[in-house]
């Protein structure tokens, strides 16, 4: 296969890098043997490559590598903290449970206190119907009437609201 000089020059780098298929490589090598200009171009490319290999290098140190592992470790810690602060995960879940528990206990205590207040102090009509029913029942028991108070009676208690 005959190839042009332009075609050959553009493939010199590929040839030197071993990136040409065998047939293209053979054709190019034949051309380079015959063409002085193209073989000179190949030598120029080789020369530039060789010179550029003398470019300075920086050396990795144990301190650099340790700094990376420290950064990784810090990131891991931060991530864990963020994870726990995110709703629905980690510590936040635990905090949620504690908060929910405290709220539940608070609610029970509130109801109990309200009931006690209802029993002891609140005047009739100022308490919710269930409490009013229980209050009335309590009063009845205190008075020793022994009569059963029906649900309907408590419902008749009017609320000032």
């Amino acid at each position, binding site marked *: 296969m005959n190839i042009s000089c332009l075609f050959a020059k553009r493939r010199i780098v590929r040839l030197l890098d071993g990136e040409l298929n065998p047939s293209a490589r053979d054709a190019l090598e034949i051309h380079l043997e015959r063409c002085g200009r193209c073989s000179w171009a190949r030598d120029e490319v080789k020369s530039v490559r060789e010179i550029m290999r003398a470019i*300075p290098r920086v050396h990795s140190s144990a301190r*650099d590598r340790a700094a990376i592992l420290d*950064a990784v470790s810090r990131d891991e810690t931060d991530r864990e903290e963020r994870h726990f602060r995110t709703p629905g995960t980690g510590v936040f879940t635990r905090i949620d449970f504690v908060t929910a528990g405290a709220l539940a206990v608070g609610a029970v205590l509130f109801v109990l206190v309200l009931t006690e207040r209802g029993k002891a102090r609140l005047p009739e009509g100022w308490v919710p119907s269930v409490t009013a029913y229980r209050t009335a029942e309590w009063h009845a028991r205190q008075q020793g009437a022994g009569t059963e108070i029906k649900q309907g009676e408590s419902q008749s208690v009017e609320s000032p609201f």
Partner: protein
Amino acid sequence: MKNRLETISDQLDDADLMRRTAAGDRKAFGVLVDRHHQRALNLAYRLSGDEDLARDIVQESFLRIFKAVDRYTPQGRFTTYLFTVVRNATIEFSRRRRRRREEPLRTSFDLDPIPGEIHHGVPGPEAPDVITANRELSDRLALALLSLGENLRAVFVLSELEGLSYAEIARICRIPEGTVASRKYAAIRQLRTILSPVRARL
């Protein structure tokens, strides 16, 4: 003397080490860092032209890899993946630096000393003027490389200085293999022009 765990880690390939890291084995990641830090640092340095910046870039790159370790799927060599991350980080850092109008990266072909401790190999028993000449040469080469555009420089460094195949470079730079070849050819032509005074003196 290495302990047994280190010996085992040394025998594992990069994909295994990444799997172990994903499973929570931090030592496996340490082995990966030890194994590839040097190459990543050189790549970052050659792409950015700044030693301190290169160290930051490499640290950031390894951190990114660690953060994304769960999503890592081995496709080709680990170095291809690492170099992709390093290259992207280099582009980002360089742009950020330019935006902040910090000290500009050296892009001209001036002969000024390169700051920082750059090792130019073991000097050996050469005369001081030879050492100075070598230093001057390597400085000129570094600056010649920096005078290439970002895309040409990346292809040249990955191919010529890191020895990657065109297929790997194509994957890293997200370009077709034919473009890798043409960019490398363009890079060498530019370097030939830039280095002609240097070559004339050699």
